[in-house]
């Protein structure tokens, strides 16, 4: 499905959707959103790109195989989840917060890193699934 309209639109949509997914990721703590939804939006951006330009183009754009994102995201989430055990001797997955909010992002805590990890894992998993199904078709 290589139409010129979709192709042009997807070039503009890809960065917009990625930006939107980061926005969703960051607002996730107190408002609707979060790592899972953000990750899905980001992978939709790449899937749309793959629809318009073909799978090879998207792979070229990504440079690495999306499967490699999985362990990276998992280890970020893992470290964020075990950090309270070592920092303040509180149970696994307790939220640890920096005292002062950062500009733009707001309050930063271990939950944000956990969500970032989830975001990366979701992008990795869903893109791997979709690429595998598309390739074996």
């Amino acid at each position, binding site marked *: 499905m290589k139409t010129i309209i979709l192709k042009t639109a997807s070039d503009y949509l890809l960065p917009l959707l990625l930006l939107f997914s980061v926005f969703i990721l960051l607002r996730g703590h107190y408002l609707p959103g979060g790592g899972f939804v953000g990750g899905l939006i980001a992978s939709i951006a790449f899937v749309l790109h793959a629809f318009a330009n073909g799978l090879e183009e998207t792979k070229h754009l990504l440079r690495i195989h999306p*499967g490699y994102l*999985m*362990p990276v995201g*998992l280890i970020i989430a893992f470290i964020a989840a075990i950090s309270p055990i070592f920092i303040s001797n509180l149970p*696994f*997955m307790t*939220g640890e917060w920096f005292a002062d909010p950062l500009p733009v992002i707001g309050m930063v805590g271990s939950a944000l890193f956990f969500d970032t990890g989830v975001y990366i894992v979701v992008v990795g998993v869903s893109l791997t699934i979709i690429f595998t199904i598309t390739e074996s078709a």
Partner: protein
Amino acid sequence: MIQHIVLYPILVQLFFAIVLLFFWNSVKAQKSISIFGNIVALIVSVWLFITIWQEGTLTIQTGNWEAPFGITFVADTFAATLVLLTAISGFAVSIFSVGTILRARLKFGFLPILHFLLLGLNGAFLTGDIFNLYVWFEIIIISSFVLITIGGEKKQLEGAIKYFTLNILASMIFLTAIAVLYGLAGTLNMADLAIKVAEIENRGLVEITAILFFIGFGIKAGLFPLYFWLPASYHTPPPAVMAIFGGLLTKVGVYALIRVFTVIFVGEDFLELIILSVAGLTLVSGGIGALVHNNIVKVFSYLIICHIGYMILGLGLYTEAAIAGAIFYLIHDIVVKTNLFMMSGLIYRIKGTFSMRDLGGLYNNNPLLSLIMIIPLMSLVGIPPLSGFWPKLALITESFNANNYWLIGAVLFATFITLFVIARLWTEVFWKEGPKLKRIANFRYFSLLSKHQKRQMIVPIVFLAFISLYIGFGAEHIQRLSIRIAQELLDNQAYINAVLKP
């Protein structure tokens, strides 16, 4: 906080699974990391077990949310014992799979998935939240789907579809049961459920929910009318996978049954009748299935089903001695069944077939190996003083005390069938003069393997055989452990207090 230790077995497996994912392309590094990871997991599990033995039940509230609201992890003696057994079998299987699984399979992430499976098992044993138990079950079955299909041979895919369908159906029934239970009680924490379910007036609805749980876990455990997926799929994957499946996966179903029916649904006469009749029928039908088959792996698959009956029987009788017998059997069974499937892998490596008709002469050719292999076989039958004898004795005595002569009949029948099947296996595979087999081209026969590879196959079998011997000869210790577990299980008030009033 000493309570952190409750989560360590889970975290260790998760950590090593992630590390293994980083080494996706280097099979050689994966092998060493996997074995190292399992050694660490074994140490942590022993540590957890000793701590629990000394300190009693420990709980931890993840995220520091108080008990009925957050997710609780509970390590009582039962959970700690099963985590320890998981670590023991996991360690043996990881060495065995490093030695036997083909490189092509290892390249598709066999070892990381194995660690995810062990992670799921540890999680299922340690969690104190019924929905969290569902999530761990899903982690277990997703990893087991990958393990059963990895390699993609025709027979594997055919077996996998049956395995897949019925396990998902079981999960859906489990999820439905959770939905109904949540509608009834409004909570998911098992200790809180125990209090709230006991207060519900409408007992009929509670019984229906209990039956839904029984069916869901029953499919996973391989109980009488629901076991058909098990012999249809367990003989298809490579022996290392069979070992972990046969040793641990059905036992998670048994664990969940024992947990749910001692903590949440307690004292329904109607349930006792159902559990006892299902246990008796499982014993008989599994035994009959084992009789007719000629493929050793299929025989072992049916023996799994048959022996699940003993554990459910102990649960159904619901006395301290009976539950202690069931726990003792569970401990013995995990070690022996894991070993049996690894053994069948070794036999396959030596002879190139699983068929009893074509096998033979193993004792003449490999006397030393045969002597090692007789230990799990005889433990399985329960020749005194080996490990299978003591729990069976307890179960038969308790059935007598309950005046339930049908059950005694079923237990004795299953025991004799096991004896007969193992005796037949011994004569056919080990003593009989072996027929001349055509050598299969390109097959990695055991005699062609390097010394290192041979060691990787034999060491885990010897390791588990020693543990079996310990369970048999040190039965006193295991019995004391089982009685303590049974006391904890029967006194569900202690469990509730440990979770809700730390």
